[in-house]
């Protein structure tokens, strides 16, 4: 071991200690500074650790937590970048904290979620055993550019890891195209035709034309967005057969889903402890990744009924007399899935939408017009109250006005302290829909009022 590595590790740990003393997360800075001192630190620390990496537009954190539950159920020694610090610096911080000062790993496994743009640098250093790609949707265009650009980033990232096994979403024509020109072994996951009622083609789809030849796709069925059974009438590019498939969505409840999965041909009933169809995708993707890491599929499937996600992903809080759920939204596709979840609720509820436009949210808020907030206008009295908040509350207010939500049911409350005080008196279930930086702030205030874990815990 070089002396540089030792000092980089020492520096990283010192910065982390200082951050925690100052009540900061210290999830990013330790890794960032340590990498300055020793640029190949992550490569060195990742050697000898069996890593599963998760990337894609939506569902990274939830999929990672599902995988984590399976690992912890089996008593495996692992660590994860749990706090959403998913750039190279944040990932490095986790590796520093899970190595001794000689750079020797303290754990056997790492479960790492990785930002789509950062994957290009991170994957080569991590050399993951398995990479799970959840899906690709248009997302924060000012930051990532168009979705085919993100796809190219991930492809480039995977070029540096030919030995990695890929778990790819078969239903996403963009994600699935990664398999074509890479030497990697691939397993597929997806939701089969007929498992859930097919939806009409959305007004706005992120992948209407064949990624190979630019001919318009034909669809056998659509689960949501551009996901489903696509095929290109000209070049024959089509949804591959899924090795890990959801064959039946038996019931979608407000607190979870019951589904049947076919895991490498073996049928099994699975209960997913999180509601909404997008979490069914996360679940089957996680089972695929866990199984391919060498655990048995049964254990992986069982973990899905037990795990709790947290950190703003359908996270529960004892706020108000009926409780609250926080549902992070970042882009039209994810937002639409949350809105569809709300549409299924039968009881009246209170909705809070917090829209920020800081760099981690995307500075361009035009995406709210691509999301189907019109669904809210179909809820009638079930949407008892709608509160808009965040730095761009005024824009959100215009959006819901045009979506047809009655203005007398809409109000604006920017100060989180008074917002949470108002919510404490609510008797209806509360749903909080913040963008990323709004989630971090609002979550702090909610936790101060009713308890919960700090974000790095």
């Amino acid at each position, binding site marked *: 071991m070089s002396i540089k590595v030792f000092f980089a590790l020492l520096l990283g740990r010192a910065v982390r200690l200082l951050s925690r003393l100052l009540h900061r997360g210290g999830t990013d800075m330790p890794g960032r500074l340590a990498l300055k001192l020793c640029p190949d630190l992550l490569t060195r620390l990742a050697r000898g650790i069996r890593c599963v990496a998760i990337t894609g537009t939506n569902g990274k954190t939830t999929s990672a937590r599902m995988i984590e539950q399976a690992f912890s159920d089996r008593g495996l020694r692992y660590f994860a970048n749990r706090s959403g610090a998913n750039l190279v610096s944040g990932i490095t911080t986790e590796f520093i904290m899970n190595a001794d000062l000689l750079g020797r790993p303290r754990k056997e496994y790492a479960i790492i979620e990785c930002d789509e743009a950062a994957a290009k640098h991170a994957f080569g250093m991590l050399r993951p055993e398995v990479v799970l790609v959840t899906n690709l949707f248009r997302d924060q265009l000012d930051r990532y550019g168009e979705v*085919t650009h993100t796809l190219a980033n991930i492809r480039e990232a995977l070029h540096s890891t030919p030995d990695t096994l890929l778990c790819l979403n078969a239903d996403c024509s963009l994600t699935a195209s990664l398999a074509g020109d890479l030497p990697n072994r691939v397993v597929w996951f997806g939701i089969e035709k007929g498992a859930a009622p097919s939806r009409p083609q959305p*007004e706005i789809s992120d992948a*209407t034309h064949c990624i190979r030849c*630019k001919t318009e796709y034909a669809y056998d069925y659509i689960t949501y967005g551009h996901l489903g059974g696509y095929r290109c009438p000209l070049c024959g590019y089509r949804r591959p057969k899924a090795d890990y498939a959801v064959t039946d969505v038996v019931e979608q409840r407000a607190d979870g889903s019951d589904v049947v999965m076919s895991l490498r041909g073996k049928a099994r009933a699975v209960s997913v402890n999180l509601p909404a169809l997008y979490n069914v995708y996360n679940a089957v993707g996680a089972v695929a990744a866990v199984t391919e890491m060498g655990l048995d599929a049964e254990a992986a499937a069982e973990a899905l009924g037990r795990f709790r996600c947290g950190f703003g992903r359908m996270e529960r809080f004892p706020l108000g007399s009926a409780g609250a759920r926080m549902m992070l939204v970042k882009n039209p596709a994810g937002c639409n899935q949350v809105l569809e979840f709300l549409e299924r609720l039968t009881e009246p509820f209170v909705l809070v939408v917090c829209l920020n436009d800081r760099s981690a949210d995307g500075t*361009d808020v*035009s995406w709210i017009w691509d999301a189907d907030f019109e669904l809210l206008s179909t809820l009638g009295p079930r949407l008892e109250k709608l509160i808009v908040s965040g730095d761009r509350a*005024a824009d959100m*207010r215009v*959006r819901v006005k*045009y979506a047809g939500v009655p203005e007398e049911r809409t109000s604006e409350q920017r100060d989180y302290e008074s917002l949470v005080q108002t919510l404490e008196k609510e008797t209806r279930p509360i749903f909080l829909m913040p963008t990323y930086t709004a989630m971090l702030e609002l979550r702090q205030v909610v936790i101060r009022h009713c308890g919960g874990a700090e974000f790095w815990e």
Partner: protein
Amino acid sequence: MELKVCHMYPDVLNLYGDRGNILCMKRRLRLRGIDAEFVRCPIGSSASLSGFDLVFIGGGQDFEQQVLLDDLHRGKDREIRAAVEDGLPFLTICGGYQMLGHYYETYDGRRCDFIGAVDLITVGSDVRMIGNYKFRCEPDAGGTVVVGFENHSGKTRLGSGVKPLGKVLAGFGNNGEDGTEGVHYKNVFGTYSHGPLLPKNPAFCDFLLATALERKYGRAELAPLDDRAELAAHDEMCAKL
């Protein structure tokens, strides 16, 4: 009164909340009791623009650009050029705006022929012009201050015979150099402003609708609406810039 609006290429030009512009026009017409028919004209649809009173073209991704150009060059380009000269009102945003020009030259020098309906060209640069911005429309384009969001790497230059839509007050506009934003030629309004453009700029939306109504009926009476929410969003961003 009735307006028939063509939403051109909603299948591929729909990138930056452009749907909000359609929603906005629909709502503001409906509240005034003006009938409106919005017709989606995707790739492969009939080229004819006859019978339409207004055409909207949004922005899109580079990925589908060739599909789009192939479709345009199957007759829509001629139809659009004739309609523009005939004074048909157009609102075109970002990619839809660039598309009306003669060509787009990429940063590495490849030239992509557009339709040449308006005398302007766009040249790619190595920096993207991204951010909230505002501009003041020229008096003959309504004279109002518009706020929006721009995200483009192409620098647009107007020909000598056409005027800009407005002057940049904050941000980049057409090219970040000459202080112009967008184009106004006959009844064509082109701009880089998405965000989307119309909901937060109700005065500009009404100006556009009035232009279409006047052309069709010789007059336009648009009763004032309750725009408090829209103007609050407009003014808040205006003050920040």
